């Protein structure tokens, strides 16, 4: 049987693809890759076992996907889908229907945490447990191999049993783990699927030639009986699953049982669990039994229908105590679901099978949100089970110092095999470390008898993200479903990591340490922080350096150091003879880049050869000599919470935080990104005051608020540090003679270069020299740090003294969105930053799940911040699909509070002239807002204790709040569209901004209905054939909705105007903001200037639709000129379009021509629209 190295998603998706005819998909982490693979295979015209290419259709939501699945099943197609978490919950209504109609199907689930106090993309069973009432069979896979095998068993069983199945495996731990598995070939799958059952499925389809009625409504007289009619099917299912397992075993030799027992035949202490924890538990049990203990484990395969008898039979008669382990939490329940099932099973059936006394059953929780679950924890649990009164409803893996539920464990307990290679590679997302490690797993797994496992941990940043690759290589199969904490090889692929994190904490004594270093073996020692030197000495590490960057550059590979580091790993780990290793690496390179061509191969080969020549061992001195310690990533001035909690998370010690350290309800402080000094840029923009025209473009365009502009009276400069740059402010946006400074935040800049790209001012002497220029950070860091500190101390211009409707004016306001972890050059964040400059001090934000919720709200820090008065945007994320409604609710609450405050004032303080003033005061300009705040403060100072407690609680709402609903196109065009439509129809004063990247950016660029015709995206691998949905037109149809299409880099002035108009308009407003994105495949240093071409080509016409509330008028205003550039000229600058031109030139030609027609037609339509009169009808 062929061995391949794949991850769990691919393992399951392959069986799904082979056995289905219709595949309905929607992206959600961590299940998205299954849909992506299915779409890509279909685009490549691969066939299923019936010889057909499955139809793969992306829907607008998981609810939609489930509906399409239901329909396709009813019409007789073998149909599947892939999902996780909230996606699965959205499928629930259809799942009840599909099961109720006894319909054969399998859904493949990368099980993921359901969002509660926080969203988590990681793995646990809260999603699958939430749907256990739907009547679906549930098969749990505990490894990559099983993700494939259970997919097969589920498909076999569902066709026979007619009960639909979930094949679930743990998100990330299994879905993203790469491991060596025995592949089920197409012939195997063919042999295991019974044709007559497939035909029977098709025979049950709706067919007008033999019509039936399904989906009736039933009354109390018969519903109940009809609901019970399915019982025999559920009763028969366990035996059917068991038979399917046996058939698989006959064909492959891999035998599974409904409940698999591992451990001592005479075990007294037994744990029961399912999913990836089984791997770690097996190892712990084997070791404990070797030590003479009598322990065991039941791994659940078939969780639903739950076969009580089979579970009891699987348990040894000697069992004295059972611990049921749930990877989910049900607050308020008598116990988690698995615990309750086990307890019930033991109570109901123990005595029917065993004569011995009924064992005690306890239950507990582990591994929520992919929390580590290690053999040491399992050993700790078994220790607890020895006790006379072991803890029930325990937790393991955390320190619960609040409810005292947690069990202790000893990290010294390890089951790692001495002879195995355990390597950790610390890399940057952009340096290819993860890809190279996956490659290594493939090289080892597919070309040797050895086994290999790869697992990858990322931090939550999109720019400068740190990745840690965990690689195990062994002569034995690897089931270790936990991270490596005893590495005998550590590769640090970025030298500066040594200054920021403890990369050697998991190195074992005598381990090999490979460092990518710009310093050679003779000089590197003196450059290391003292703590690193000490660890190298104390752990007696074998220390090697390679200047991978130089090798890569010499091979013309830019910063891609992966090949170099991979070669050095092979050379040092001696997994293979050197010549063979080199050959295998080159073969792997050839495989990876076969489509690219000779140049790429040759350059990579050069890097391989250069790597060995550049690899040197460092002679380690006996004593640490360095004078500098590792620097803290956190500013010393940070507040208490940041010091206690955020700092721990930043340092990678979040696992050590006890329950008491964390907020009980998911509420966190804002203004925390500023305390973290990531300092990831190599080059930063340096201002040349002499050339600057004070235009403010650099500041408005900066995605990270790392370039700022301030105007101030000259006297402030008296305390400026030496070298602080300043010039006379040119402009009329602020009164009086002013000086100004453009200042970089040197530790917060990502070095994206957007500011320099947009800067229009050039030197007369040297044209390439602009008013800001990227320069090596190392040469400027100290001075710019001091400059920036002083800059921050300069008061922002008074809001009521600045003209805010210009680019310059807006940039004199303080940004209250700063230093996000968004991609360098992100096209979204400048819009958010600008909104906070205009409205931030009174802004309430409802944020749809997506990129903006991740860079906005993923721990450890948030870019949403506060001004000197402590005011700033207040932010929340509910879900992906409900964001418009969520924000609408906020509006209702704000309005209600304002009305209540006014009502109480009028009732209780009617005589106070201040009341009338507050109620009637305009709140349009900044001066109005400031005046209103002063009135409200005055009012509050007059309120007395209990008498006005209610008024006191809502008085702040008397200052108008700016409610903003923020989300991406996946939300607005697809999953959240019906809610958005409803909210736009409400007539209420809400503001919506759609950050339109034209794909689901956060999950890796899947097509949405905002994706343009001709673009290649995931789920549209053949190029999207339909045009982009015109969301603006749909909204305009209401007549009373303010709509603007904006593109900041093309016209910042129009963007500012649209934002101000939208906020001022008392009804619903919709801003559709063109947001360049890494998923477009452009040079992100041009992310703002590129928008100019989008507008010039008519691809993204900018306009404003201003509802005419005062009578007839022309509401639609085009803010751009007739297109002067062809679509093709614009499109071919982006990889998403040019990829199609490469992969399928004819189709590209056709779609590009249609896209040009789209533009022409739309321009003609919009031009006519600009002359149409309309009026808003109102009372």
């Amino acid at each position, binding site marked *: 049987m062929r061995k391949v190295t794949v991850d769990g998603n691919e393992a399951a998706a392959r069986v799904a693809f082979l056995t289905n005819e219709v595949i309905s998909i929607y992206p959600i982490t961590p299940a998205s890759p299954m849909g992506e693979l299915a779409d890509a295979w279909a685009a490549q015209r691969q066939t299923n076992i019936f010889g057909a290419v499955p139809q793969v259709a992306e829907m607008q939501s998981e609810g939609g996907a489930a509906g399409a699945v239901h329909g396709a099943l009813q019409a007789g197609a073998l149909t599947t889908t892939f999902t996780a978490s909230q996606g699965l919950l959205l499928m629930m209504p259809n799942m009840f229907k599909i099961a109720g109609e006894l319909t054969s199907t399998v859904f493949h689930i990368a099980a993921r945490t359901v969002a509660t106090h926080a969203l988590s993309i990681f793995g646990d069973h809260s999603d699958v447990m939430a749907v256990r009432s739907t009547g679906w069979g549930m098969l749990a896979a505990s490894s990559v191999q099983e993700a494939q095998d259970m997919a097969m068993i589920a498909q076999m069983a569902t066709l026979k049993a007619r009960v639909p199945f979930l094949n679930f495996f743990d998100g990330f731990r299994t879905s993203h783990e790469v491991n060596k598995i025995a592949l089920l070939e197409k012939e195997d799958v063919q042999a295991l699927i019974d044709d007559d059952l497939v035909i029977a499925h098709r025979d049950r389809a709706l067919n007008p030639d033999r019509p039936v009625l399904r989906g009736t409504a039933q009354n109390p007289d018969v519903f109940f009986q009809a609901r019970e009619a399915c019982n025999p099917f559920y009763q028969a299912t366990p035996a059917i699953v068991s038979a399917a397992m046996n058939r698989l075993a006959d064909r492959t030799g891999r035998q599974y049982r409904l409940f698999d027992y591992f451990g001592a035949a005479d075990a007294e202490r037994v744990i029961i669990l399912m999913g990836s924890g089984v791997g770690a538990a097996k190892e712990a049990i084997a070791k404990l039994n070797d030590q003479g203990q009598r322990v065991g484990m039941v791994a659940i395969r078939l969780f639903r229908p739950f076969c009580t008898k089979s579970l009891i039979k699987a348990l040894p008669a000697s069992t004295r105590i059972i611990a049921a382990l749930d990877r989910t939490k049900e607050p308020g329940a008598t116990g988690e679901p698995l615990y309750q099932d086990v307890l019930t099973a033991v109570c109901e059936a123990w005595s029917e099978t065993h004569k011995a006394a009924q064992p005690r059953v306890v239950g507990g929780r582990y591994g929520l949100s992919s929390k580590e679950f290690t053999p040491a924890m399992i050993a700790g649990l078994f220790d607890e089970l020895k006790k006379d009164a072991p803890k029930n409803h325990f937790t393991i893996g955390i320190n619960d110092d609040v409810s005292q539920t947690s069990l202790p464990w000893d990290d010294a307990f390890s089951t790692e095999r001495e002879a195995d290679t355990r390597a950790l590679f610390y890399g940057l997302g952009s340096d290819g470390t993860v890809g190279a490690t996956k490659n290594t797993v493939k090289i080892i797994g597919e070309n040797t008898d050895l086994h290999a496992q790869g697992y990858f941990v990322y931090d939550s940043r999109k720019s400068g993200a740190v990745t840690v690759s965990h690689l195990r290589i062994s002569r034995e199969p690897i089931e270790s479903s936990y991270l490596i904490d005893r590495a005998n090889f550590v590769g640090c692929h970025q030298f500066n990591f040594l200054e920021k994190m403890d990369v050697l904490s998991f190195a074992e004594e005598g381990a090999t340490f490979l460092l990518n270093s710009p310093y050679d073996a003779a000089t590197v020692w003196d450059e290391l922080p003292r703590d690193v030197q000490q660890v190298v000495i104390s752990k007696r590490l074998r220390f090697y350096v390679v200047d991978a960057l130089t090798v890569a550059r010499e091979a013309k590979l830019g910063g891609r150091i992966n090949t170099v580091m991979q070669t050095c790993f092979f050379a040092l780990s001696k997994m293979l003879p050197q010549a063979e290793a080199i050959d295998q690496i080159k073969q792997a390179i050839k495989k990876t880049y076969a489509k*690219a061509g*000779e140049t790429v191969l040759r350059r990579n080969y050069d890097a391989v050869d250069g790597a060995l020549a550049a690899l040197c061992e460092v002679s380690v001195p006996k004593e640490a000599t360095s004078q500098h310690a590792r620097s803290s990533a956190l500013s010393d001035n940070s507040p208490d919470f940041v010091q206690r909690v955020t700092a721990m998370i930043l340092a990678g010690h979040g696992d050590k935080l006890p329950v008491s350290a964390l907020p009980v309800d998911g509420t966190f402080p804002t203004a925390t990104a500023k305390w973290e000094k990531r300092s990831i840029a190599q080059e930063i923009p340096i201002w040349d005051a002499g050339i600057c025209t004070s235009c403010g473009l650099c500041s408005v365009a900066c995605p990270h608020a790392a370039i700022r502009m301030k105007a101030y009276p000259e006297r402030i400069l008296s305390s400026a540090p030496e070298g602080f740059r300043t010039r006379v402010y040119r402009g009329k946006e602020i009164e009086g003679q002013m000086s100004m400074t453009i200042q970089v935040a040197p530790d917060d800049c990502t070095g994206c270069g957007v500011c320099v790209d947009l800067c229009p001012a050039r030197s007369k002497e040297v044209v390439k020299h602009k008013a800001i220029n990227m320069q090596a950070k190392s040469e400027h860091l100290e001075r710019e740090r001091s400059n920036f500190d002083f800059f921050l101390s300069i008061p922002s211009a008074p809001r009521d003294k600045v003209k805010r409707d210009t680019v310059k004016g807006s940039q004199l306001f303080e940004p209250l969105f700063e230093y996000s972890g968004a991609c360098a050059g992100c096209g979204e964040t400048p819009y958010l930053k600008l909104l906070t400059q205009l409205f931030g001090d009174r802004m309430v934000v409802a944020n749809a799940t997506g990129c903006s919720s991740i860079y906005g709200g993923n721990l450890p820090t948030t870019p949403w911040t506060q001004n000197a008065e402590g005011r700033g945007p207040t932010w929340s994320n509910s879900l992906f699909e409900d964001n418009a409604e969520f924000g609408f609710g906020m509006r209702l609450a704000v309005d209600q509070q304002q009305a209540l405050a006014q009502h109480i004032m009028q009732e209780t303080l009617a005589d106070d002239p201040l009341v009338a003033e507050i109620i009637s005061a305009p709140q349009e300009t900044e001066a109005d807002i400031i005046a209103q705040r002063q009135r409200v403060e005055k009012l509050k100072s007059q309120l007395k204790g209990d008498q006005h407690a209610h008024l006191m609680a809502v008085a702040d709402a008397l200052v108008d709040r700016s409610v903003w609903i923020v989300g991406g196109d996946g939300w607005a065009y697809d999953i959240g569209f019906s809610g958005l439509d409803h909210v736009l129809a409400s007539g209420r004063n809400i503001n919506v901004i759609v950050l339109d990247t034209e794909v689901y950016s956060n999950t*890796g660029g899947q097509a949405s209905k905002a994706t343009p015709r001709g673009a*290649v995206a995931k789920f549209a691998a053949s190029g999207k054939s339909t045009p982009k949905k015109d969301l603006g037109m749909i909204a305009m149809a209401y007549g009373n909705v303010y709509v603007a299409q904006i593109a900041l880099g093309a016209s910042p002035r129009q963007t500012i105007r649209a934002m101000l108009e939208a906020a001022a308009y008392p009804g619903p407003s919709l801003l559709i903001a063109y947001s360049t994105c890494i998923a477009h495949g452009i040079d992100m240093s041009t992310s703002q200037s590129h928008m100019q071409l989008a507008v010039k080509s008519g691809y993204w016409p900018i306009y404003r639709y201003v509802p005419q509330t005062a009578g007839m008028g022309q509401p639609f205003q085009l803010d751009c000129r007739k297109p002067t550039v062809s679509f093709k000229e614009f499109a071919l600058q982006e990889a998403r379009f040019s990829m199609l031109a490469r992969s399928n030139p004819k189709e590209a030609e056709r779609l590009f021509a249609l896209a040009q027609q789209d533009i022409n037609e739309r321009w003609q339509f919009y031009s006519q629209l600009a002359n149409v009169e309309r009026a808003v009808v109102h009372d």
Partner: protein
Amino acid sequence: MSVDLSTEYLGLKLRSPLVAAASPLTGDLDGLRQIEEAGFGAAVMPSLFEEQIEAEEMLVAKLQDHGAESFVEASGFFPPLEDYNIGPQKYLELIEQAKKTLKIPIIPSLNGVSTGGWLWYAKRFQDAGADAIELNVYYLATDPGTSCDTVEQRYIDLVSSIRSVTSIPLAVKIGPQFSSLPNFAKRLREAGADGLVLFNRFMQPDIDLETLEVRPGLQLSTSSELLLPLRWIAILSGRVDLSLAATTGVHQRDDVLKLLLAGANVATMASALLRNGIDHGARVLTAVRTWLEENEYESVRQMQGSLSQRHSADPDSFERANYMRAITDFTAP
């Protein structure tokens, strides 16, 4: 009397001395078909640029790696595609198609300066059925530390590299700026070249006064530019064992005739075709034929080199005499 227009170039027998030089017109099968129908002796395909090959290949690799594995939720940002159709692939397909459907020799062209992996495409050209290869060397020495010897050696190395992996004829297209062109031509021959194409026209960048940006520009040639290749072909003809092709400034009947007299094996035409269409070539050829008939030539070969420097009654005229005569003839107004 029928005039024999055939000629020999790079050891290939051509039916006429007019060759379609590299231009967009020779970049697709339709264009090549029209060129054959117009009576051209051969066609040189547009250059496959080293920079372009490398950039395209690196771009595909970059696309493959674009954003890959850099963020926990995104394995990458583009689906894997089955075929990226990078430039060389399409190019090689065109050679194959042209060889299947056309009779005239097809000469693909490589443009570059380094001896990197891209040179392997020469071998691919041969495998795809190309009749010969034109190596177009575009190198501007901008570093004061680079000597002319280094530059010349670079050309020699390039030719040797290609020769080592191919066996089909090789023409080298060069610029005019060499201190001793005959010596350099001899060395190229020794390195394995079979012919010289004189001279390539470099892209001439311009400055945009509005944006203060440098804009690439390529002006079409005119007949007045003919004189430079004419002179050097006359000088080299019979002195080096190389086929000689003239390029730049070949627009009209007279241009072709002059070049043949000077010793060119072929005259290649691009700008005139871009300006007037491919049929222009047919018209020029007809005019050449008529002239030859009127002047009682039997064949092109008969006249080739008959007015080369070696065969000229006044060999000095191709050297300083031109200059002297220009001065002497000058009459002040």
